[in-house]
């Protein structure tokens, strides 16, 4: 603990003098990631548009209200909401120079993310067993593409977060890992926002 604090402090100290040239570059990188998130937003927008257009075309297959099991979806939603909050707490610990807290909250976030993915995959497997595959109807093609793309983003985030935790364990809180934590937390909040719209447009409006 004492070691972690000393480490972080020495970092913020060695950081201060070189701040002029450094901050610009780091904030520029953060902005680059922000622009990636916006293009990702447009990707999801296209998938949402496709889903909305196709959601009535069930081709004699199951409809949304027959297919969706809300308890699982509600659990997924609250799990992802909480993980968005805990990734914020990770950033907060980092800003206080608390490496253990930072890694701890990242672990909690990753575990919540993993349970989200487990629930989602279970849901998908169940649907496929019920005969609702991606090829069954336009509605299900749109559904699996949209929700699956989001799930893929979360899975990718989990791999990335694990790699970052290893880096943090090795190097501690440096300007580079600091930027990476800020970026992954942005990414995680973004995925939560996308899920809120999946939850609203696909599930809630589907079962209504």
């Amino acid at each position, binding site marked *: 603990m004492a070691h972690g604090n000393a480490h972080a402090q020495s970092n913020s100290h060695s950081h*201060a003098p070189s*701040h002029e040239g450094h*901050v610009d570059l780091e*904030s520029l990188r953060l*902005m680059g990631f*922000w*622009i990636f998130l*916006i*293009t990702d*937003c*447009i990707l999801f*927008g*296209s998938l*949402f*548009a*496709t889903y*909305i*257009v196709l959601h009535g075309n069930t081709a004699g297959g199951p409809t949304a209200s027959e297919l969706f099991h*809300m308890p699982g979806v*509600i659990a997924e*939603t*609250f799990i992802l*909401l*909480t993980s*968005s*909050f805990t990734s*914020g*707490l990770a*950033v*907060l610990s980092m*800003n206080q120079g608390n490496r253990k807290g930072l890694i701890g909250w990242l672990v909690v976030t990753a575990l919540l993310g993993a349970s989200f993915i487990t629930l989602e995959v279970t849901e998908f497997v169940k649907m496929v067993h019920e005969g609702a595959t991606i090829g069954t109807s336009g509605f299900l093609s749109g559904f699996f593409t949209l929700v699956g793309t989001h799930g893929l983003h979360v899975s990718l985030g989990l791999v990335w977060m694990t790699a970052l935790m290893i880096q943090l364990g090795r190097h501690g809180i440096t300007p580079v890992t600091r930027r990476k934590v*800020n970026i992954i*937390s*942005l990414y995680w*909040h*973004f995925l*939560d*926002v996308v899920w*809120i*719209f999946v*939850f*609203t*447009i696909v599930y*809630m*409006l589907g*079962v*209504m």
Partner: protein
Amino acid sequence: MAQHSGNEHEHEHENQHEHEHEHEHEHEHEHESHGSLKSYVIGFLFSLVLTAIPLMVVLNHWLAGTAAKVVLVGAAVLQFVVQLVYFMHLREEKKPRWNLLALIFGLIVLMTIVGGSVWIMTYNVVSH
């Protein structure tokens, strides 16, 4: 926030250095900053409430048709704003607000794609 009140005390004593301190503030704000525990907790509570409202409306059948749709989409949009403000700290961005501008541009493209597709396909006679 605690840092601020601590430094304010110093301000009173060293007016000469006030300018330098302000610079430090900016530096902290840009680099460390990004919210307090309070703002994260408020954001989290808001997002829980904004998720609970649509759930109650739909599962208890409080509203139906267009009214329910408006409440659901409204809650989702508010949730988006809550995440942007309390978790992604969009409001704390400094003056040339490129992030905000990029976001607005992205949202315009998004609206055009989603709104345009839905609008075209709603009145598309061939697809029905």
